[in-house]
């Protein structure tokens, strides 16, 4: 006889397996916790803070915090969703996100999370940063204006592609994505359009060229289902394979 370990998630008892994070336990139980830097195929990162939940009264990142028997976890509360909306607004004002002219619109997780959280305006003054785009690669466009610094491409390139093409440089609000090549240009790096790093970007910062607007707006990923349904129905093999 084995005793099932459970956590309480918004008052509902859900089981978890040894080694589960709160995010993993919740996802398996069919509960969506908003996130952007988290991706089930990669080591949790814990930087975007969208998945902030209250564990026994303390704010923790669900994607990194281990589930433990008897934990009281709050997820879908007005306070937490308010904080998540604020985080989404911060991500929008930090970069240059012009959804109507972005080919990722409709397939963009930042946009989808913003809709999910009912974000109606950016609220904060926009930074309008000057960021360098990089079109030097024949097959890949790097548009730093849209980068949210989730480091998924950094992790994918290092852990899956074995190329270590991307990294973050700078500090604070000046943090930015850099390319590991002598010139700093993507065209001079080892990156290929078939790399995991080219597929994993949750926003429109890394785009494979020649595929823009293949699917018309209105028929795209998040036109058909919201981000919570999409995340819960993920088949790991096709994650990220959803260009515009």
């Amino acid at each position, binding site marked *: 006889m084995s005793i099932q370990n459970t956590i309480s998630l918004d008052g509902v008892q859900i089981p978890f397996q040894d080694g589960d994070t709160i995010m993993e336990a919740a996802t398996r139980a069919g509960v969506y916790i908003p996130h952007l830097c988290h991706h089930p195929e990669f080591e949790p990162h814990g930087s975007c*803070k969208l998945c902030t939940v209250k564990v026994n009264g303390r704010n923790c990142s669900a994607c990194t915090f281990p589930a433990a028997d008897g934990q009281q976890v709050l997820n879908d509360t007005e306070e937490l969703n308010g*904080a998540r909306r604020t985080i989404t607004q911060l991500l929008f004002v930090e970069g240059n996100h012009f959804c109507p002219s972005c080919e990722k619109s409709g397939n963009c997780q930042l946009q989808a999370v913003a809709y999910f959280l009912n974000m109606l305006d950016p609220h904060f003054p926009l930074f309008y940063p000057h960021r360098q785009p990089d079109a030097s690669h024949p097959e890949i466009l790097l548009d730093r204006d849209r980068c949210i610094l989730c480091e998924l491409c950094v992790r994918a390139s290092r852990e899956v592609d074995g190329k270590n093409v991307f990294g973050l440089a700078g500090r*604070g609000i000046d943090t930015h994505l850099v390319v590991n090549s002598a010139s700093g240009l993507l065209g001079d790096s080892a990156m290929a359009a078939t790399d995991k790093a080219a597929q994993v970007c949750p926003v429109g910062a890394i785009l494979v060229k020649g595929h823009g607007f293949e699917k018309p707006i209105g028929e795209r990923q998040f036109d058909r289902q919201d981000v919570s349904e999409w995340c819960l129905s993920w088949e790991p093999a096709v994650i990220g394979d959803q260009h515009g």
Partner: protein
Amino acid sequence: MLLRSHAHQVFEGMTLCAAVVGAKRGFLYLRGEYLALRAQLETVLAERRRLNLLGVAILGRPEFDFDIEIHLGAGAYICGEESALIESLEGKRGTPRNRPPYPVTHGYLGRPTVVNNVETFAAAAAIGLRGGAWFAAHGTEKSRGSKILSICGDCARPGIYEYDFGVTIAQILQDCGASNIFGVQVGGPSGVFIGEREFDRRLAFEDLASGGSFMIFDKTRDVLEIVRNFTHFFAHESCGFCTPCRVGTALLRNALDKLCAGHAAAGDLVEISKLGQFIRATSHCGLGQTAANPILSTLERFPEIYQARLKSVAFEPGFDLDGELSTARRLTGRDDAHAHLQQESV
């Protein structure tokens, strides 16, 4: 001060710790700003090796092998946070790790690691020599021992002081010759700003905790400028890892600039306070969680000073109207009166 004048005691404390936990390698993480201390510290380490206080079979005890290396940091404030320090020690960007796991089980290179500051190790060595009863006789019930303070600012005798925990702020101010005091920032930028009414409070973990920084400001100082300075500091020192701190501290910096420039309205204060509390609640590490302290602690104590700096309009735009025209002026080569706009004020 401890490394300059009491390096042996610090290294002795580290060696004691190694003996207790069974560590073989120790590091002194020295900020780049203290490069000048390095040669002197290496001399101390060499002397300790010569005396067999470091190295193989310390003092003839078999299997007690321990040595200390000096690792230079590049001078980021965040590298005072233990897990960011370990990242930096491993040669990576200084960003705080996700916890758990904690350094005590997964630290340097994933191995169990004890991280303490030099003051703690120096105190451990002193306890080793004089005993726990001696140490516990100092301080308060909940804060045993003493605290070294770096006192600076508006006083006659700034410098390094050591006090038993439990000393009042008034006593410290008297000892260092401070008068006409407006307030004290206790515990550095991430600490708390207290005013005259609180000078009977005590330096102790259960009252006013401090890493050792003690900045005194007299009545000639502008509190908002002090706060603005701290807010710029945090925006500069934010490592950029998590969203709330990376973007939030930059927004707070801009909001304080707006306030100090006389462009803020009542709504801005509400925004500043809300944003500060949000950054405190959602940031990844202690830097972000305390970055709004200078604002929140002064806003709570001296709301009238903030109020006095506000414009009497309900709303002030976040941008500078005239500044927005500068590109157009440059392009058209104009700089006459008609090429300028005044920010409207009611």
